[in-house]
């Protein structure tokens, strides 16, 4: 029987999404500060 591991799958994708998005936001923020 296939185990229900959906919660871990969602959590991993959310965590990865947050890390990548956070980095893009940090680039945007630093760029904005530099341009000012």
């Amino acid at each position, binding site marked *: 029987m*296939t*185990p*229900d*591991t*959906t919660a*871990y*799958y969602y*959590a*991993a*994708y959310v*965590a*990865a999404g947050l*890390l*990548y998005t956070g*980095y*893009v936001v940090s*680039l*945007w923020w*630093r*760029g904005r500060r*530099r*341009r000012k």
Partner: protein
Amino acid sequence: MTSPTHSLPPTSRPLFDGLFFLAVFGVLGAVVRIVFFTPYELAQGAAQKIYYIHVAAALSAYLALAVVATTSIVFLWLRDARADRLAESAGEVALLCTTVVLTTGPFWGKPIWGTWWTWDARLTLTLFLWFITASYLVLRGAIDEPMMRARYSSVLGILAALLIPFIHLSVYMFRTLHPDPIVLKPDRPSLPPEMLLTFVISVLAFLFFCFMLVRARYRLALLRELAEEAT
């Protein structure tokens, strides 16, 4: 250091342009394929799909560190500021990707191995890689003099990349819990065709996205240098 020439004034180049947004859409497309158009693996269930982003992040980290090492060698040889700037940019993206690897891995390990973490050779070496890459960026932030910063960090960048073959081969060199490679191995990939296609798409999408991140970070480094020159 030799001073680079630019065809466009750096301040006129946006950090995020059309190519960057194309890369974002590529990643979103890969995720849609993973979620909606790729079957579950019977023994592991949905958690197996973590593989597609976990391995894509690992390969992106390896490639980014290979760029760090190559550009560091180029810097030590030619003393070209562009090489050092590219090494710094790739180093930051390598740290991001290694963090993704170390974050997504435990979400697979908990349901499959029954534990979030184990001091297995592959996991431990990857953690060491994270610390060395973080040290590389800390070292860069700690030295003000550009020439000294570039020289010292180049050496550390080359040493960090030397860990990559050991990490990749650790599953053969040591008795580990971590699964053996199922695509990047001497034999044929052991994934079914539709899963293999999803894997290839996700790796290409994430590699392109990380390349765009390095490009944006490089432009940010240019802006910072201009600001430093102006003050």
